């Protein structure tokens, strides 16, 4: 079943997630404050790009958050991601919300508040340690 996914932040992580989801057949709306960042993406009929701040409810609404089934906060800033993801969950009632948090103490705190967080640094570290196992 194709899903409608909203991604905030079109850095390397956001852009590659958007590309992967499009590949799977999903519909993607991606937001970034800097239109320059959309250079990382190729145009596709199931991909919509919006210039705007993902912490603004008005911007999220105009990008169609009310019909999104999943939400990914993927900017490089923990604070922005935390606000965007918690808006998606609490204000817009989206069930599937993933939030990129780089600080390990903060990601533990957000997990305890019921938010699903992904720590890119932690993931890379774990994989590297695993790769170095004898």
């Amino acid at each position: 079943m194709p899903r409608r996914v909203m991604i905030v932040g079109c850095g390397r992580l956001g852009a590659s997630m958007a590309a992967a989801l499009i590949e799977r057949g999903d519909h993607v709306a991606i937001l970034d404050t800097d239109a320059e960042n959309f250079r990382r993406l190729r145009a596709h009929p199931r991909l919509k790009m919006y210039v705007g701040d993902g912490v603004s409810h008005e911007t999220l609404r105009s990008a169609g958050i009310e019909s999104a089934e999943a939400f990914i906060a993927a900017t490089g800033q923990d604070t922005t991601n935390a606000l965007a993801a918690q808006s998606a969950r609490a204000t817009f009632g989206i069930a599937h919300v993933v939030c990129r948090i780089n600080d390990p103490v903060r990601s533990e705190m957000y997990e305890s508040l019921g938010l699903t967080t992904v720590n890119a640094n932690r993931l890379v570290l774990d994989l590297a340690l695993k790769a170095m196992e004898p």
Partner: protein
Amino acid sequence: MYVIVVGAGKIGFYLTRALLSASHEVTLIERDAHISAAAAEEFGSIVITSDGTEPSVLEEAGANRCDILISTSGRDATNLTACQVAKYSFNTPRTVAVVTDPDHVPLFRELGVDVTISTTELILSHLEEELTGGPFVHVLPMQGGSKGIVVIRAPYGSPVVGQTVSRLKLPEGTLLVAVIQKNGDLQPALADPEIAPDDEIVAITPPEKEDELWRALTGEAKR
């Protein structure tokens, strides 16, 4: 009290000065080195140049023993994070966030921020009062925002003018406390005064009933 202030912009700077002159203990955290240097020139060693949303920084500042944390930066995301880290990682008893985007006010309360100060709404409400001179509501949040004190002026032509307090139909969950008459006299609601035009009616209401209460007392929809 021990107060941590995050952000040494205009609000944080003058707030710190006021708190210090009222003999409170203050730590001021500012990320920008130029801004914090200016603050340190005035306040000395209580200024920390660092990111007030970082758990290690808040720990160093003593978030686990402070009475209140007030985050005053111009970024809503920063203020929310500082308050949530203080509250949930360090059990800070009260957190206060300055909020720029009024849409974030109910969200921040839901997310555990005890008090939100919306600069936009504050200025707007004062402007409306200045410009219209019409019936007006002041809100003082209590109980973490689940109830608030409101003051609503009954205009000429309001359906409540000429009625006594006990006869008023008010929304469920609201309590009429007192009536301030035009000459300045304060009448407790229990004395059952009759409402005259331009009386200010003091009530306690949950925020979701505020519009209904407004309509009941003024006869018109809230702007």
